[in-house]
């Protein structure tokens, strides 16, 4: 369920280069005595049309901004009754300087101890994503998308799912827009969904998906995020996932959202070599929808996760810019981004090393009852601070 939110940039925040030094058409005058001459002069020479008396002997005068000059102000000040006359300086809210104004609404970052970590620069690491596409022009994704293959479909992310996933992975940090991603890495998008639904749902184009998997294996990406799945396994897919493993790509996939509908085993999450991710809510309990099973690797935030949406609405998605969505789709990119951070810190590690590290540094949550592994949480909740801490 999408939760629409407001604009990412507060209306009181003007871009730094657009800020005014003075309030247009306003002069403040301090007059010692009850005299009218300075105001009459301003009325005559600068189109003064209104005055506002402040406390004491300060007066704000509304004038024609085009007539305001240093000479005009000096002439006013030449009156013995006038202590000073000056333009009203512009002032703005310092709070508006805060970076990524929505990041305090990203509960998931606190849950995975992202704020407690000194994340390495990961700009050299690319996370591949096979999804519904991406809005490359989103302010929080500018410069983030290293490549975008949408062959056979339009570039528009009609559903918005791929843009949401991309934001969780790599939304820009320290800017004035929106949210932050888990890693400062790059994203390579393969759009594997069509532009139109089939019988009401969007299904992967199977041939395009297999070709994308092969392309990822030779792309140089270190991580592949798959926030998709289905109940049927495929030998052709397994063949390609084996090749991805050999190519050094850490593959992360969603456990699925059908816990209360039979809790099926889903693929690609259940393939060998794929790290399967379940979802937790803000309470650190399993998200009710999140599938469980022996193949689960670990868990990550997946309920009400705030991230980016395309800036333009579509017939399938009225919301734009930012929204909170739920699903193991949202948990998975937290782990994919964490894998990118590991790859940045340990560029020589294999996918097996990376997955073992992610599981080994996961935090045990209360519902695990002291066990090192459960079918609800796997090895536990993703813990960025522990993941990046030196041994």
């Amino acid at each position, binding site marked *: 369920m999408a939760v629409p939110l407001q604009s990412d940039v507060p209306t009181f925040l003007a871009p730094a280069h657009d800020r005014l030094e003075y309030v247009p058409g306003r002069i403040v005058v301090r007059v010692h005595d009850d005299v009218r001459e300075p105001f009459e002069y301003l009325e005559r020479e600068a189109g003064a049309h209104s005055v506002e008396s402040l406390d004491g002997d300060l007066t704000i005068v509304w004038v024609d901004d085009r007539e305001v000059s240093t000479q005009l102000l000096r002439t006013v000040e030449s009156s013995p009754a006038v202590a000073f006359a000056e333009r009203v300086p512009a002032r703005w809210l310092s709070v508006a300087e805060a970076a990524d104004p929505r990041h305090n609404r990203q509960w998931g970052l606190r849950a995975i101890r992202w704020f407690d970590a000194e994340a390495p620069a990961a700009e050299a690491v690319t996370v591949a994503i096979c*999804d*519904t596409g991406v809005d490359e022009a989103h302010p929080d994704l500018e410069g983030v998308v290293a490549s975008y293959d949408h062959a056979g479909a339009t570039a528009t992310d009609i*559903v918005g*799912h791929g843009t*949401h*996933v991309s934001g969780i992975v790599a939304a820009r940090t320290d800017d004035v827009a929106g949210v932050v991603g888990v890693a400062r890495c790059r994203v390579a998008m393969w759009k594997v*969904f069509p532009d139109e639904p089939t019988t009401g*749902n*969007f*299904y*992967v184009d*199977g*041939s395009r*998906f*297999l*070709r994308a998997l*092969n392309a990822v294996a030779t792309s140089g990406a270190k991580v592949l995020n798959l*926030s*998709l*799945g*289905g109940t*049927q*396994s*495929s*030998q*052709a*897919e397994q*063949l390609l996932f084996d*090749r991805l493993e050999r190519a050094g790509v850490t593959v992360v996939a*969603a*456990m*699925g*959202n059908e816990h209360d509908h039979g809790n099926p085993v889903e*693929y690609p999450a259940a393939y060998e070599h794929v790290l399967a991710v379940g979802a937790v809510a803000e309470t650190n309990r399993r998200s009710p929808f999140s599938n469980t099973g022996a193949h689960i690797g670990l868990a990550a935030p997946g309920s009400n996760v705030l991230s980016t949406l395309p800036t333009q609405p579509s017939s399938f998605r009225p919301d734009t810019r930012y929204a909170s*969505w*739920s*699903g*193991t*789709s*949202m948990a*998975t990119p937290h782990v994919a981004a964490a894998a990118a951070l590991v790859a940045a810190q340990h560029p020589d590690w294999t996918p097996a090393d990376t997955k073992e590290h992610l599981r080994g540094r996961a935090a045990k949550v209360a519902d695990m009852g002291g066990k090192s592994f459960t079918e609800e949480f796997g090895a536990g909740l993703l813990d960025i601070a522990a993941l990046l801490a030196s041994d």
Partner: protein
Amino acid sequence: MRIQFKLREGATLDVPGAVRLFPDDTDPELASLYVVELPDDEAADALDELKRSSAVEFAEPQAERWLRG
């Protein structure tokens, strides 16, 4: 319905309408993967036939995958 299948090394098989999944790839493993689109009412029989063929390593319907969020 789409059916994908992999031929055994060195094997050949004439399946009308089948195309290579990776037409430009010379890697033997990828070059032996094919896909064929068939009407739903013909697909089950065709799949059975492919599975019985000694030239085929595996044959399967293309798996459905959908979004998890």
